[in-house]
């Protein structure tokens, strides 16, 4: 392949950068942790953040997250691009608060939002969805004491996970088909007949409904066929089970989280 430098610049649409965080294609000490560990620690730290959004807490949690990001070797190119709208809202708010006199409150609020999102992103960067399903099943198991059918839930989640790529493709295809037609119609349209806001809302509802019905129809057929195939082949799918093996990493993660939470609560007493 030609080296990138010798190539012409890629078109604009391809230079959008990263989208939603997803699992990085390499292993790291963080990706080897039990996913349940990450879920529990993330829940604890997020809860601490939103209940005690002080500078001390935000700073300490941000430091922990940065260490985790280094261990997971998250590159800068994996960070989602901030949409223009969000960026301009931030700048507008910043200027306003600078004039309004209490800039630190505004910065603390922004920092809180960024750190909460960073925590979620770290989980998604270091965990494959397929690993999370058995972890959910394990974490939900205590609910069985309340006669909650968690095995069925886990089986449903596994099936859901398998279906997501296919259905994402299908929903995308419906949207594509719609674009192909709308594109055509825009060229044909001699006079814009619907210009009012309400009429436009109605039209977009009708449009959305057509897309939704096509997607539901395709999914309903798929569900019926899958159900039949499963019954013909011996019934309900096996429940995804994992043997939870906690290593040193998990111990460190739990201890670190506990230390941060306890320390913050004592310091802020």
């Amino acid at each position, binding site marked *: 392949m030609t080296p990138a430098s010798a190539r012409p610049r890629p078109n604009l649409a391809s230079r959008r950068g990263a989208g939603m965080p997803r699992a990085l294609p390499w292993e790291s000490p963080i990706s080897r942790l039990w996913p349940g560990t990450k879920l529990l620690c993330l829940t604890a730290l997020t809860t601490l953040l939103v209940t005690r959004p002080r500078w001390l807490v935000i700073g300490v949690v941000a430091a922990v997250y940065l260490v985790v990001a280094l261990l997971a070797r998250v590159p800068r190119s994996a960070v989602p691009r901030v949409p223009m709208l969000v960026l301009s809202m931030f700048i507008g708010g910043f200027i306003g608060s600078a004039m309004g006199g209490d800039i630190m409150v505004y910065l603390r609020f922004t920092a809180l939002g960024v750190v909460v999102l960073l925590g*979620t992103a770290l989980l998604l960067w270091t965990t494959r969805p397929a690993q999370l399903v058995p972890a959910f099943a394990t974490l939900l198991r205590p609910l069985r004491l309340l006669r909650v059918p968690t095995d069925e839930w886990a089986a449903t989640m596994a*099936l859901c996970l398998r279906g997501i790529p296919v259905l994402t493709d299908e929903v995308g295809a419906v949207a594509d*088909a719609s674009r192909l037609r709308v594109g055509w119609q825009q060229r044909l349209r001699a006079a814009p007949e619907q210009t009012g806001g309400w009429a436009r*809302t109605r039209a977009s509802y009708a449009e959305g409904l057509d897309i939704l019905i096509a997607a539901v129809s395709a999914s309903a057929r798929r569900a019926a066929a899958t159900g039949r195939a499963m019954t013909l082949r*011996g019934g309900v799918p096996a429940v995804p089970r994992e043997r939870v093996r906690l290593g040193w990493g998990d111990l460190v993660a739990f201890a670190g989280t506990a230390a941060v939470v306890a320390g913050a609560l004592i310091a802020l007493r």
Partner: protein
Amino acid sequence: MTVTAQTMTHEPATPRRRGPMTPVEIASAGVMSALAVAAKVLGVVMPAGGPIVAALATVPLAVVAYQHRFRVVLATAAATLAMSSVMGGATAWITGLASVGVGVAVGWLHRRRLGWPAAWLAGLVLAALNAVQTIVTLLVLSESRILSLKAARTSAEGMLRMLERIPGLAPTVAVWRDVLDWLVQHWWVWLGSGAAVTQLIGVLIAYAALGAVIRRLHLGPVADPLLAALESRGASSPGPLPVSMRGITFRYPGSTVDALQGVDLDLAPGEFVAVVGPNGSGKSTLATILAGAAPTAGTVSRPGVAGLGEAGGTAYLAQRTELQMLGDTVEEDVRWGTDAADEVDVAALLEAVGLAGLERTPTKELSGGQLQRLALAGALARRPALLVSDESTAMIDPAGRAGFVEVMRGLPARLGTTVVHITHDAAEAAGAERVVRIVDGRVATDAAGAEVAARPPVTAATRAQVLPSNPIALHVEGVTHTYALGTPWQTTALRDVDLDVRVGEGVLITGHNGSGKSTLARILAGLLVPTYGVCETGGKPVAAQVGSVALAMQFSRLQLRRPTVALDILDAAGVRWRGPLGPEQVDYVVSVLASVGLPPELLHRGIDDLSGGQMRRVALAGLLARQPRVLVLDEPFAGLDADSRAGLTEVLRGALDNGLALVVISHDTEGLASLCGRHLTLDQGRLR
């Protein structure tokens, strides 16, 4: 044969079921929650505004709540919440719970056939609950609430100070400042009522949307005649053979005619029986009775139960192969549903069906014929005494079909399994020990198989090379496409693709799944702008004129948007018609239908009442109605039987003669030589 269509009843009258979820329920829960998550992940690329999208995303759950019992709804909700947080992060949880409430309530309202007053009432109750939930959450998270209100107050204060400097505005600003202070102090008033109004609107939109879904799709509880047979699994030991059927009559619920009338049939172990007959003659119904469905009248006597899917019982092969696979790899699929304790010799099974050595191959890379062989291997893993093949060869290409029938024919001698092969292809019945002919729900003949003259091979002349003087319709040069460029997930799907398609020319592009086929199709149609290179028609990039290159998708249902055939064809042609059709419109649609060989009776047919082959032709009719310069077809023959293939080929040949340029993307070459004079292969993103 469309078994599912026949067996769907239109009114939601499920008997209340108890106990663990059945496979059908789990499948429904899993697929619908996946749809809800997929819609959320994509942010649903529709031109509608925020609240509409949010409300429509609750509909998959509402569909489950309409069709199924509460236990299934709960599993769907749990899976949707868990998976959307996995895909979309913690923020999905915050809106998730409220939307679960909307979905469950709306499905329940329709299930109980409650009208708009009830929908308003439910909406108001849910709105109040959402308001209370919002306020309580914010009370608990008091520090975050105070912080965010303060931050907003400070930013607004800055803006107000700027405005104050403008002469004459000072008194107005003072009023605004008072309003702002009031809003900050009484946050619960507007945040609570805002949450309530959003929820109410959501319920009303979702209620209307689910109503439309139900009207158009006839969603009802699926009454599969095999369900009873499946539920008795393990009750008593399987012993499907020898079977003796006397005076069997079967009528589908809600139907007015008998699918089978007084059928007598005996089967012994170790037979190969071909069942033939025209479409709709009751062959598939006979298959379901053999597989253990209870007849409406008559007696079926066997030594034990049919034992569907059980070891030593009955195995059943259906028509659609791509929907039968359950594992990600070949080995996983064969083992699916067997206990770890069962000794399954996967290698030997694969050898027997002609898939030796493919254990590790992902199932999505198999062709239609290979998938059906895989389904057979999965069935044989249970050493069935009876194998019922319900038109299992209808959708395989002829080369694959002959080999597959050969494998089935060897089973009686090899394993002692009796094979009942249902087909509408007389050639496949030739040479069977016994041929049963079904006509109008009755056994017409039951005799030793005669040598039926094999169908003469279709002599499709290869299409001649198109004159190089024809103008170029589609020009692709140096196209390289990389997804997620510059991120850790960067993958290159296409490399340096060059392609020129001339007017009246057909080009066939074959390649395995994952070779970049769908990326190429999307670029050719202008739906995707390639990272490097150009894709042009008429001297302008296709992406700047989306719609000028038509794209026929593999799964046609996804392309049809309007409720009926006539409305969809008008919509495709650029007319969004409402109300009854005028004679002009009727004439137009009838002529378009005729152009793809469809009869005028289909004019007012509902889209979801069409067969697979009809859907594909209606979608094609809509595309051709715009007279595109270039038509891209993605797997045009997948899932079509021989007759539909022939009809479609005819239509496309006519379009080529009229100067259309054709690009066919397919994984097999079957029947395409007569359309495409040029054959290229796509391999790891390179076109040769």
